[in-house]
């Protein structure tokens, strides 16, 4: 199957600081990729580069065979890049429903389907975005991204800052999206053990470079590798 996403030799950063250097990766249609690494290794920069909010320095980003690296964010979004930012960035002055419909594009993910998927959002559809709890905001951020009917869904540390019980709920949602619905996506995470069972493949970043790439199942079984690069102890 053809790769949906192909990144070649990507170096990127903010301002003068180069955060990512010479990163390459490929992602097939229907595949979910976990991007792991400690704080500050360039995980978010990788996501931001695909979305288009980072200053790109060099390299190419092909989405469905088309190089999107020079396009502004709104055009990338139109071509199918969906984003759940780390800060969630809910439009606080818009209602829950408006957050979704303001950016919705036609496709299988209608407002109704998003609400079916997240019943809690439906209950709060008329509340202001600012009134939601952290977990609800994360659900809304995902629902909003789904409503753009993306070909590629990018999630930046979705479990960060959430209570354990909410994390469990979120993981069920992600499992449903990537395992049952067959969405293509990249999930940046610190919690390797929680995210590896959901994804097909994984890569580990260190100081802006890819230091490991392989199947998620194999990495999950390789306690030494997890320990070495991520400081995750077996358990």
């Amino acid at each position, binding site marked *: 199957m053809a790769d949906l996403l192909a990144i070649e030799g990507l170096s990127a950063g903010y301002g003068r600081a180069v955060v990512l250097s010479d990163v390459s990766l490929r992602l097939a249609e229907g595949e979910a990729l976990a991007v792991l690494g400690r704080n500050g290794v360039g995980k978010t920069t990788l996501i931001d580069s695909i979305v288009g909010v980072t200053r790109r320095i060099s390299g190419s980003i092909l989405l469905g065979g088309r190089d999107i690296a020079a396009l502004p*964010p*709104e055009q*990338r*979004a139109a071509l199918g890049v969906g984003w759940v930012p780390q800060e969630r960035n809910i439009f606080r*002055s818009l209602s829950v429903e408006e957050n979704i419909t*303001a*950016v919705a594009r036609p496709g299988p993910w209608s407002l109704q389907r998003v609400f079916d998927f997240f019943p809690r959002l439906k209950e709060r559809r008329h509340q202001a975005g600012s009134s939601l709890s952290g977990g609800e905001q994360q659900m809304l951020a995902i629902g*909003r991204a789904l409503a*753009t009917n993306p070909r590629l869904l990018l999630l930046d540390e979705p479990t960060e800052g959430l209570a354990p019980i909410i994390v469990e709920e979120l993981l069920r949602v992600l499992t449903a999206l990537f395992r049952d619905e067959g969405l293509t996506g990249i999930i940046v995470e610190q919690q390797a053990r929680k995210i590896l069972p959901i994804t097909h493949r994984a890569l580990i970043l260190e100081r802006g470079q890819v230091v490991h790439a392989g199947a998620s199942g194999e990495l999950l079984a390789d306690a030494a590798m997890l320990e070495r690069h991520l400081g995750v102890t077996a358990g």
Partner: protein
Amino acid sequence: MPSATLLGQALISGVLAGGMYGLLALGLSLSWGLLRLVNLSHFALAFLAAYLTYELGTNYHVAPWWSAMLIVPAMFAMGLAQHWIFDKFKVNELASLLITFSFAIILEVAIQLYWTADYRRYETHYSTMSFKVGPFYIPVLELILCLVAGVLAWGTWLWLRKTYVGKALRAAAEDADIAAAYGVDHKKLAYLLSGMGAAYAGIAGTFIALIATLAPAQIWTWLGVVFAVVIIGRLGNPLGALFAGMLIGASESIAMAVLSPAWAPVVSFSLLIVILLWDPEWL
């Protein structure tokens, strides 16, 4: 103590005068609230439209409602042209004040060059017409103005809430970069909104031509009070702008009827300060 008739009449004329504040505030509130551009030239555009209405009406005998069909789209185009400059120079909120002030001055000078500084009055037989309800007189033109302002404010409010474009604009006003990452083409929408704001100035101008006697320096007459209206009505909220306009108009008028007329200008700004400090939920 003033009589009930006097109070009622003052309330009516105040609310109707407030309709003009609201109508002028509408476009200003939209561009300030949703584009972060403080457009001082809004008033000058309104007066340009008023002078054009006067010119077409006096010299070519075109009725104001027909000339509006010509002038309002022309103002829309001027709004687009103005936004092109904002866009090209990446103008921020503060710089927009300076630049649009300059636009306003240039328009004032241009108006004075063509129409001179002397007073221009578009006399119509209906400009001071009114009808009687009980003991009260209701001026027809101001009533129509308020209805038009009401329709515009209500329509714009619905548009911002119900349409994709409206919601996208509000999202972009809150966070343009995030909205862009979700596919909102903020630039295109900003052009649309700037055009709309200028078109609203055109509509206000038509009424100014009919209600007021024109002189170039009159451009600044409404500046202070309309700013207060925009802020009280909350930036980017068209219905708020209209209600705030009527609230200020009514308060000024009641102050003039009950206290000394000289208190009127104090009222709008006192109201502004009170509301800023109090910040009630319902406003």
